């Protein structure tokens, strides 16, 4: 029987370097031992730490590779968005200055041309009408066309088609 009783106060296990006191326990076991005492408020932390701990099962290169891939693809999406914004702006503002006026003017010219064609087609129905004396003063206001006929378009319905007097 030992004369001096060794009182195990348990204080040594609470000290930081208590690993040397109880070497037979693996570090994970100590944690698991403590986990039973821990409660719900530490559960989130434990979950993250669990996931992080799970990732430790992959080798280092896989871990760093996947981190790099994820951050690179996030960066790529951001810069692609920024680049496409710039590109779309440059293309549209340049085409406003470089192409829009020509396109508008060509369309306008086409519409005016087609309106004139339409008018001329309406004119064709009236044909070879001899000039009536009370309409002769209207001839002074006409514009002569290149074929030598005089068009007069006063109303939408009534169109005169009069041989041009020399």
């Amino acid at each position, binding site marked *: 029987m030992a004369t001096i009783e060794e009182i195990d106060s348990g204080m040594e296990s609470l000290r930081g370097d208590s690993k040397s006191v109880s070497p037979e326990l693996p570090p994970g076991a100590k944690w698991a031992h403590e986990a039973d005492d821990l409660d719900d408020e530490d559960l989130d932390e434990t979950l993250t730490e669990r996931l992080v701990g799970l990732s430790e099962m992959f080798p280092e290169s896989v871990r760093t590779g996947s981190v790099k891939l994820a951050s690179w693809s996030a960066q790529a999406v951001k810069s692609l968005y920024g680049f496409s914004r710039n590109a779309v702006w440059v293309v549209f*503002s340049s085409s406003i*200055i*470089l192409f829009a006026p*020509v396109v508008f*003017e060509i369309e306008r010219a086409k519409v005016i*041309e087609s309106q004139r064609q339409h008018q001329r087609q309406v004119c064709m129905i009236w044909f070879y009408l001899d000039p009536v004396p009370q309409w002769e003063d209207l001839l002074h206001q006409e514009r002569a066309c290149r074929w030598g006929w005089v068009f007069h378009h006063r109303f939408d319905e009534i169109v005169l088609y009069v041989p041009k007097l020399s």
Partner: protein
Amino acid sequence: MGNTVVASGAPPPPSSPSSSTPDPPKRNDNPGTFEEIHKSTKDVFPNFFEGGRLMMQRGLSNHFQVTHIINLSSTDPSGYRFGATYVGSKQLGPAESYPILLGDCDPSGNVSANLIHQFGERIRAKAAAQIQRSKYQATKLAADYMGDDFTASITLGNIDVLKGSGVVVGHYLQKITKSTSLGSEIAYQCGPMIPGGQLAVVSLAARYSGEKWTASGTLGGAGVHACYYQKCSDQLQMGVEFETNTRAQKCVASIGYQVDIPRADLVFRGVVDSDWNIGSTLEKKLSPLPFTLALCGQFSHTENVFRMGCAFVIG
């Protein structure tokens, strides 16, 4: 500036035929002057201006034309300019009559004047002066000799005998074959500001024309300037220009095009630059009355600067 525009009205009086030569076929072989070697490409590119401008041109007779210009602008000083053009009676072609006197003046006395005259069949002389704030800003005297298949010119600029400064430039352009022309330029400058007192720069130029295209280039001490012009169709012409400046250590490439739509009375020119500058000019004749509307806009993507100009020409 209306240089050879003869005022509307009766055709100018026919001048007596000058000498025994019937018609100058040699004039067709003449390659033009050295300064105009890149002309076909440069005509495709737009000319920009800024602000509002109202221009009234009035022909007082066959020979005389008067211009009133009002400029409103935030960058250049706004003002009124009065211009006059006199075209003489020596007529050499449908649009060329000599002598031509052009003048432009300002209410504060800033004047720019040009005089062009043709002596005989071959020698053309030009004189130009610019006076600002009662001092000669720039003067130029030039003489061109137009031979059968070559052109030689000499130009004197800013000659100041008292200070001993001035610029002398000699040009020579020779037509080698029907489509090739070669030329050279020597520019000599002397003055107290130049290190060493004097400086000479030599350049060579070449131009090759095809049926619907022209390629021209200048290579010299001042840099390289290469141009290409293509007539794509009756309505579309394109030009490409590449210019370097050895003194400023910069080079710029630009693509320009010109669209002519006669049925809409429209001429549209646009340019895209390698410095991310774009610009365009639109000129439209508002037809029953002799009005012309010119709009121009320039935008620089790098500096985010937009400039716009609007001109209305009456007459």
